[in-house]
């Protein structure tokens, strides 16, 4: 997995507030979820990576190059969508994408084919000739993503990419991002929507109070953050006997009945989902669904932030 971005001991000192030192790398093909509370330093890190702000100390490399000294070269093949993008309100989406394409060095023919395709991809084909000033917040967010995807980048850096986008749009963009990675791209995405991160990202970087508190896989983060893991079991009917059957499975620590089934707390070092399924089916109960609880990442995240604060 070739390294695309590297931040090493990077510090940004704003005077009253200091971000860093932060060290992490991003490899090709990853979808990195970059998490942290407001003001933790996510945008600062991203902006250092893009060469928009100068680190007070440390080094930043994008495509192996210093984005400050060799900005144009380092940012080749990189697309960036800022949080709540401030776009040129006097232009139309079509004009903005043409401008972005020209800044990427695309020729007239490439621009002619790429701009309508991008407008279509982000769901703005009908609004291509409206003034940006007339577009809704969600449409501007879509346009922000479109301008980042101009010239088929290899790395997409997205700061809160789905804020303001309607639920159907969020689902659509999830598939757009997955396709992007399937075709060889890499994404670094900051977000506060943990369910989105959990569904999309392959790894996490968590920052808190200007310090990186975690870098690794999502499961690893959950295991590390939670003392145990929660398995959610959906069954047709819950009774005491079933609770007893599940409690007897090795690795199960606690079983709680819920309206739709069971919430099973298991040891963080084991994965007894298969055994639990087998035991439930063996007892004659009808198993409808089983999986790790969806709120696990939220819980792990909150604990990691709270723990650090303590």
């Amino acid at each position, binding site marked *: 997995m070739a390294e695309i971005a590297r931040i090493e001991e990077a510090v940004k000192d704003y005077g009253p507030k200091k971000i860093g030192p932060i060290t992490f790398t991003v490899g090709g093909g990853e979808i990195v979820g970059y998490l942290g509370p407001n003001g933790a330093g996510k945008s600062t890190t991203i902006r250092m990576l893009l060469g*928009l*702000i100068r680190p007070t100390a440390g080094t930043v490399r994008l495509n192996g190059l210093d984005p400050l000294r060799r900005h144009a070269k380092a940012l080749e093949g990189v697309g960036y969508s*800022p949080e709540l993008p401030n*776009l040129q309100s006097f232009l139309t989406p079509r004009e903005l994408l043409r*401008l972005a394409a020209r800044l990427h060095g695309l020729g007239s023919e490439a621009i002619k084919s790429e701009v309508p395709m991008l407008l279509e991809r982000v769901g703005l084909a009908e609004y291509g000739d409206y003034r940006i000033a007339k577009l809704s917040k969600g449409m501007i967010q879509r346009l*922000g993503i479109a301008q980042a995807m101009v010239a088929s980048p290899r790395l997409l850096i997205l700061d809160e990419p789905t804020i303001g986008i309607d639920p159907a749009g969020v689902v659509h963009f999830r598939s757009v991002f997955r396709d992007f990675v399937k075709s060889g791209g890499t994404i670094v995405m900051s977000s506060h929507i943990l369910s989105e991160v959990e569904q999309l990202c392959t790894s996490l970087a968590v920052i808190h109070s200007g310090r990186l508190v975690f870098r690794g896989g999502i499961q690893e983060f959950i295991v590390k953050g939670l003392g145990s893991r929660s398995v959610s079991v959906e069954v047709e009917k819950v009774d005491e006997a079933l609770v007893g059957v599940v409690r007897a499975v090795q690795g199960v620590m606690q079983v709680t009945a819920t309206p739709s089934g069971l919430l099973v707390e298991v040891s963080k070092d084991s994965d007894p989902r298969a055994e639990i399924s087998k035991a439930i089916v063996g007892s004659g109960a009808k198993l409808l669904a089983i999986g790790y609880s969806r709120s696990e990442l939220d819980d792990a995240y909150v604990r990691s932030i709270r723990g650090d604060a303590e």
Partner: protein
Amino acid sequence: MRPGRILTFARYEMRRAVARKKVLAVVGLTILIDTVPYYALAGAGLSLVPASYHPYLWVVGVFVPQAFFLQFIALLIAAGSMSEEYEQGTAEMLLSKPVGRDEYFFGKFLGGYLLMVLVILLNAVLSVSSATYVFGPQGGLGILPLVLVVQAFCSLVFYSVSFMVGELVRRSSLSYILSSAVFFTSQIVGIYLSVIYSLTGQETFRLASLYLPTSPVDSLPLLLAEPSLPDTVRTLFRLGGIGAVETSAPFSAVLIAAYSISAIAIAVAYFIRADVAKRIT
């Protein structure tokens, strides 16, 4: 630096400047200033202006705005060029593209400056066409291309200074205020120094006034054009209150270059090192 990227930014800057109502208002004002006086004179009766002046009345429209109006337009175009991008948060999107900061800087500088040159051209075209329409065929127009080139060169001073101020303060209203303050202070101090020199005869005051940024800007077009124009025009200049400070054209040219290059150098040095703000509110 890649010329293609610079031109892209230049085109973008022209488009951005035109989209601002301020610049459109200025263009509208240029049209009024260059047409209304001629038609007003025509309305009042052509006989009010001696016939010997009629073939040279284009100089009034071309030279009168030089000292104040054209410099103020330069200031208006340049003061918001960088600062408004920071205020609106649009610099971030542009500079996250694979472009050099120098390409962005010089592209924007060039775009705004080209717009300024177009205003100078518009000023000349309207003046000449209005004078021709109202007072008949105009003479001495051979000097006009040189005058336009010199006016464009002169406008570099306040264009560059305002561009620099916009980059340094990164707030458009503050940038307009400070740039205007530099311009008006120079004008006013120049008048005071000239008055004091007239009263005291002390050379120091005259020399000091020559080094003010407004001095070479006001003088250079006249210094170069006057020898090629007939006496009638000189009388017209005196009547219009237009007069070159007693200095030389090379001295004025060097001073204009020095002011412009210094301002550009300071702005570039700051811009290359400074962080690109997310959005200044």
